[in-house]
């Protein structure tokens, strides 16, 4: 089993790519705070793009006017208030949730190659929606939200329960594989149900790649408290996660309780991944990219990684969504665009890593 177990040193290698760099460049630590400003600016630009870019070309001045002076009788104004604004809010919330959920997953599993999609959370959400549509006569779009929330939460709990008990604690790859396997199982169950209930297939197809369209603002705001709660828990756990990244033995020696930390973080992950998937459908790769980009910029400190993820993830999601709106006559679902952006970046990341093994 030599090739799949990583020594603590190698694990740290995986998770703390820039450890040596920050040690040799103390000015980076000082500059970290300054880096937040350009990131926030980028995020703002992406959100503006989300407001201004759409299938229907609307001049920016019009968008601004409509946003500030809502007029239910005016077509453009309605478009801005019923489509652009809800989608931008959704991009912000779902993006932040996915980014932080990914950062948390990567910290807990000590594997930078995890995100809600890879760990099967998206498959769980899809299965829940499919089950609701097929067996419980769910028909209303807003109900999709609660079903997928429940599905994503249950799956997160399951993956972590499976992955953090037993020998997996020391083996981050094993948790990833457990998640992938669970994801495959759940999407297999989904296909089994979809095949025998083909009318459900017709309705699921669009949602299953993740979409920001037709999500009313009220619905997004209903999910928002859960996402905010998850963000708060994540913010409070950053120091504990830093300690955890040194390895279980070291963490215990420093007085921390690894299992307890994981349990708390699990709640946060479930809320965040669940909330994001509930609002926008299963979107992959955002949770993978944002924390890694953050790590490249600010180093291995969990707090900074999360702060940057909150800014970077909506940026990427916003750009992907804007792109999806204009690529074809109908829109390309945002989950497809993020996969196309995300996979090459993931591959590039892997090639940079100093993963050494026997």
């Amino acid at each position, binding site marked *: 089993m030599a090739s799949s177990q990583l020594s603590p040193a190698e694990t740290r290698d995986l998770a703390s790519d820039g450890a040596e760099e920050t040690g040799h460049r103390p000015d980076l630590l000082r500059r970290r705070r300054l880096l937040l400003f350009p990131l926030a600016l980028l995020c703002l630009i992406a959100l503006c793009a989300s407001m201004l870019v759409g299938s*229907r070309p609307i001049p920016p001045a019009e968008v601004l006017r409509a946003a500030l002076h809502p007029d239910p009788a005016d077509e453009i104004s309605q478009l801005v208030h019923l*489509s652009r604004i809800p989608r931008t809010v959704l991009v912000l919330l779902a993006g932040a949730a996915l980014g932080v959920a990914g950062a948390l997953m990567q910290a807990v599993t000590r594997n930078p190659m995890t995100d809600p999609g890879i760990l099967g959370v998206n498959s769980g959400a899809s299965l829940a929606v499919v089950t609701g549509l097929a067996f419980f006569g769910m028909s209303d779009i807003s109900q999709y939200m609660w079903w997928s929330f429940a599905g994503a939460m249950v799956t997160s709990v399951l993956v972590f329960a499976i992955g953090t008990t037993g020998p997996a604690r020391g083996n981050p790859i094993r948790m990833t594989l457990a998640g992938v396997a669970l994801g495959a199982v759940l999407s297999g169950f989904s296909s089994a149900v979809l095949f025998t209930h083909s*009318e459900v297939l017709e*309705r699921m197809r669009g949602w299953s790649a993740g979409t920001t*369209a037709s999500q009313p603002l009220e619905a997004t705001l209903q999910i928002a408290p859960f996402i905010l709660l998850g963000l708060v828990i994540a913010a409070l756990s950053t120091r504990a996660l830093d300690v955890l990244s040194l390895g279980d033995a070291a963490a215990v020696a420093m007085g921390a309780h690894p299992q307890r930390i994981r349990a708390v973080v699990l709640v946060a992950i479930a809320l965040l991944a669940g909330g994001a998937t509930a609002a926008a459908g299963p979107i992959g790769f955002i949770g993978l990219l944002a924390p890694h980009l953050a790590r490249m910029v600010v180093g291995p400190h969990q707090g900074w990684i999360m702060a940057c993820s909150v800014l970077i993830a909506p940026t990427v999601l916003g750009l992907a969504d804007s792109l999806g709106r204009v690529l074809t006559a109908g*829109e390309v679902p945002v989950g497809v665009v993020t996969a196309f952006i995300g996979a090459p970046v993931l591959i590039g990341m892997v090639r940079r890593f100093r993963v050494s093994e026997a």
Partner: protein
Amino acid sequence: MRTRQLLLPSLLAAAALALSACTSSGADPADEQSTADAVTFTHPTLDDLEIDFEGQPDVLVMDCYAYSSLHEYGVEPDALFGFDCENPFVMGDIDISGIERIGQDGEIDVEKLAALRPDAIIGQGGAEGWSWFDKSVNSQLTRVAPFIPLPDAETVDEEIDATRDIAGFLGGDVDSEAVAQVDEDFETAREDLRSALEGEEVSIMLASPTKEMLYTAVGFQQSALLEEAGATIVGGEPPAEGNPWGQVAWEEASSHPADIILIEGYGEGWSFTADLWEELPAVQADQLGSWGSKGAMTSRAYADWLTEVTALVESADDVA
């Protein structure tokens, strides 16, 4: 261990080869015997397609699309397969509970099919078989019985006539009073629609809304029928090939203004909500009706539909 592992695959291979040797005599295609009873069917829309039968086809197996049209003429199948068998918008009032099902959606149990010893299989497709089976399943299917593809014509009228041809060949009642009456009803309904649309600028959208986008049907037979009666059909341009539905993003939905929106599958149990859908003037004025792209190809079905559309047109305000 090594020898054992070699033994088993080679035994399998030997068995396979032995069995295949035994089958060399069995693979005869259906002979076209010209006996006194043999009949040949010339397909109404597919040129060069002539199907030979050993006798008048009696035991029939068809897909639900075919049954929805042929039921009208009293042609009854011994088994059904295919898509939309439980869809009331395709099957209408037809009760299929007593008929054996040998396949659902894209699957079929070829053994059950063979056991029925059918004389003909009817369904959507072409000369080689059903549209949604792959070649190997179709070759098994056509060995059991000849396949009659449903006609595919430019206009609704041609398709109804061609379907009636097939029904007639299969022994359906195509010359009865009832059928003639329904033809008249269809003409009357068409005339009523024409006069209702006379002098008016009524725009109609044939749609199928989903959460991620609005699908529209432009260039379908049903839209051509309405256009010919004088309506203006609005919707997104369909792609050059592939899926014939046009894709309209929700933001663009209001740039296709329509007085009336006909929704596929609209009826009692239909529910769909989306903010931008509710904004459409036709939805706000509740000028909504139904249509189907896959429904029965019969005069009765279209007579009923055109009557419904006419009523909508007459009561509709100009909101687009």
